[in-house]
């Protein structure tokens, strides 16, 4: 297999690799928690795209039984299993992202910041104040 053929044949996977690296970049380099959560969502979407693109068969149609095509030959329909799994994963992903944002809202209410180093600094200061109070008492 020539290099170009290999590259073109895997083109969907290169997009997935780019999206996964972008999501991880958002999660580990960015300092804002909302940006970290956006990075996590991009990561999740990349996994979903990978699953969907692995379901494709050349020369196959959508997984809805058609009288003109018949169901005896499994090669004539796209693999339906990945579509099913990712269908539920998308909606569950939205719901869990909602929980993540709810947690961020409570963090912001408590500490008035969503910046990671600043939050660590404030938590440390609060803990020291509490320890000092404990020593005085």
């Amino acid at each position: 297999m020539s290099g170009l053929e290999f590259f073109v044949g895997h083109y969907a996977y290169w997009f997935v690799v780019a999206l996964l690296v972008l999501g991880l970049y958002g999660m580990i380099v960015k300092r804002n928690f909302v940006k970290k959560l956006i990075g996590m969502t991009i990561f999740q979407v990349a996994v979903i795209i990978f699953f969907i693109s692995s379901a494709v068969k050349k020369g196959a149609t959508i997984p809805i039984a058609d009288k003109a095509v018949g169901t005896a030959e499994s090669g004539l329909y796209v693999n339906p299993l990945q579509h099913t799994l990712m269908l539920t994963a998308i909606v569950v992903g939205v719901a869990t992202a909602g929980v993540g944002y709810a947690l961020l809202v409570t963090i912001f209410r408590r500490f008035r910041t969503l910046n990671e180093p600043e939050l660590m600094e404030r938590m440390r200061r609060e803990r020291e104040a509490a320890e000092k109070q404990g020593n005085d008492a």
Partner: protein
Amino acid sequence: MKVANFAALALFAGLLIYAASGLPNRGDPTAVLHRDTSPAGTPSAPSYYIRNAYKDAATPNMVTVILADYRGFDTMGEETVIFAAGLACLLILRRKRKNPQGEIEP
């Protein structure tokens, strides 16, 4: 710190590219994933679903049949997860708080 982050990213990208190069071409009908029998010799699930979905449930859309019938327990779990997520949001955010006058806000 910054250098370590980007080194980790490069390592991750290299790992992913190495893994992707072992995959079959996109849309290759002879890939292991699309075979009628698994490498262990047992019949594979997707082919079974394609052949028997209409016979079993009188519903042409195979994705619906797998979602609600063959994998009904899975979908039930997912729906419970969604419900639990909504409940978690409600319990985290929608709480009664006393304002400075001592009245309970809804």
